[in-house]
């Protein structure tokens, strides 16, 4: 089934979120797609607790607070979110676009707004030689179907929430070993104490060290060599699950035929439109002379982009400039 809306925003970072507001004031409806399981982009994923000092009128606000308040601000416009999915392809229709994600969601819209930051968040892969030959067979960076691990021997690498949560969860039905470079973990204290309890009871094993080599042995098992204080040892397992956080990668956007400048999408500074009409790019993903990768700049870009998107959505209507302070009509939309 294909859903229909006015605009699909690719990326639900701060700039994608604020675009909903600027478009909403002009009666333009939005869907947002994001690879992450949450909204807020870099602010929510990379620095939720860290302070930002350069948002106008907010002397200090954390990444998560900014996200939460943006959500509150756009709530009257009722945007639809498609999280946990990556936009893979876009296809032209007679009067717009169909945007398709990796899990098959299809949304038809008149315009696309790319607010994709530095690209999709993807797992950080350990630089072990040949590891790519085992990916999605014996090596997984994310877990979709945990039943395949039942009664198997698993090595989980990392010290954050994903590593600890999966250690605790998979220990129920699998033989789990956790490997981390030190005995301290940055995961939530609850998960850490649960893991330590499992280790004391002998339900899981812990190894201190870092994986250095990977190779295949008979019966599709893996042999992993790891190092701790210059000493090398081996462990044989069925599966390796490395959890070393996320990094950003441009991904499928590079293949959509948009003019790029060093992996960023070129736009004009009046409409923030790309080389393809009715596709716009705002926030960290775009480039123009003088571009600054600031949240502030992304907000400004949203407002100007919306003016042009209005023309695509309502070709016969005239857009009249109004202030939220004085316009009864805008205030009605905002429910204030």
């Amino acid at each position: 089934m294909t859903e229909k809306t006015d605009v699909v925003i690719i990326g639900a970072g701060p700039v994608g979120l604020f675009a909903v507001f600027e478009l909403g004031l002009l009666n333009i409806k939005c869907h947002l797609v994001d690879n992450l399981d949450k909204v807020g982009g870099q602010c929510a994923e990379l620095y939720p607790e860290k302070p930002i000092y350069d948002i106008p009128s907010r002397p200090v606000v954390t990444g998560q607070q900014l996200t939460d308040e943006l959500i509150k601000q756009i709530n009257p416009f009722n945007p639809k979110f498609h999280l946990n999915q990556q936009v893979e392809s876009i296809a032209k229709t007679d009067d717009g676009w169909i945007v398709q994600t990796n899990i098959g969601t299809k949304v038809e819209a008149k315009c696309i707004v790319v607010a994709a930051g530095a690209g999709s968040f993807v797992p950080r892969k350990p630089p072990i030689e040949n590891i790519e030959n085992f990916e999605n067979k014996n090596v997984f960076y994310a877990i979709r179907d945990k039943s395949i691990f039942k009664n198997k021997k698993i090595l989980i690498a990392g010290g954050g929430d994903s590593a600890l949560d999966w250690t605790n969860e998979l220990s129920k039905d699998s033989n789990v070993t956790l490997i981390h470079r030190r005995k301290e973990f940055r995961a939530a204290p609850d998960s850490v104490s649960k893991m330590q309890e499992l280790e004391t009871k002998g339900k899981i094993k812990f190894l201190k060290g870092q994986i250095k080599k990977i190779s295949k042995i008979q019966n599709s098992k893996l042999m992993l060599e790891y190092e701790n204080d210059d000493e090398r040892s081996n462990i044989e397992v069925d599966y390796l699950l490395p959890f070393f956080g996320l990094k950003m990668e441009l991904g499928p956007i590079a293949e959509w035929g948009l003019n790029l400048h060093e992996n960023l999408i070129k736009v004009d500074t009046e409409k923030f439109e790309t080389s393809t009409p009715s596709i716009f790019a705002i926030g960290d993903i775009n480039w123009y002379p003088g571009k600054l990768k600031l949240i502030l700049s992304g907000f400004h870009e949203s407002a100007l982009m919306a003016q042009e998107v209005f023309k695509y959505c309502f070709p016969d209507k005239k857009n009249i400039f109004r202030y939220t302070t004085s316009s009864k009509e805008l205030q009605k939309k905002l429910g204030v």
Partner: protein
Amino acid sequence: MPKLRITDRSGKKSEIEYDSNFTLMETLRDNGYDIEASCGGCCACATCHVYIDKKWINKLENMDDDEESMLDQAFDVKNNSRLSCQIDLSDELDGLEIEIAPE
């Protein structure tokens, strides 16, 4: 001006002068060394990983929890690993020797 000795990823050694108002990451980046530092020095990416020469490691201020946690997302971490954005270059560090860690 105080000096810094750098070994890059290819093993090439070089020496530069530094300004003690900047961090080690900023100094490396601004002098054109290949260091990603994708979070711009906020201790949120672990792509500014360096090794500090053993003679110098104890002369630096200790790592805080934030840096130690972020290093968990780096690879090839050693006892002398640090995130260069968390190191303030002071005049006392004149002669500091560092190596840029593999990507």
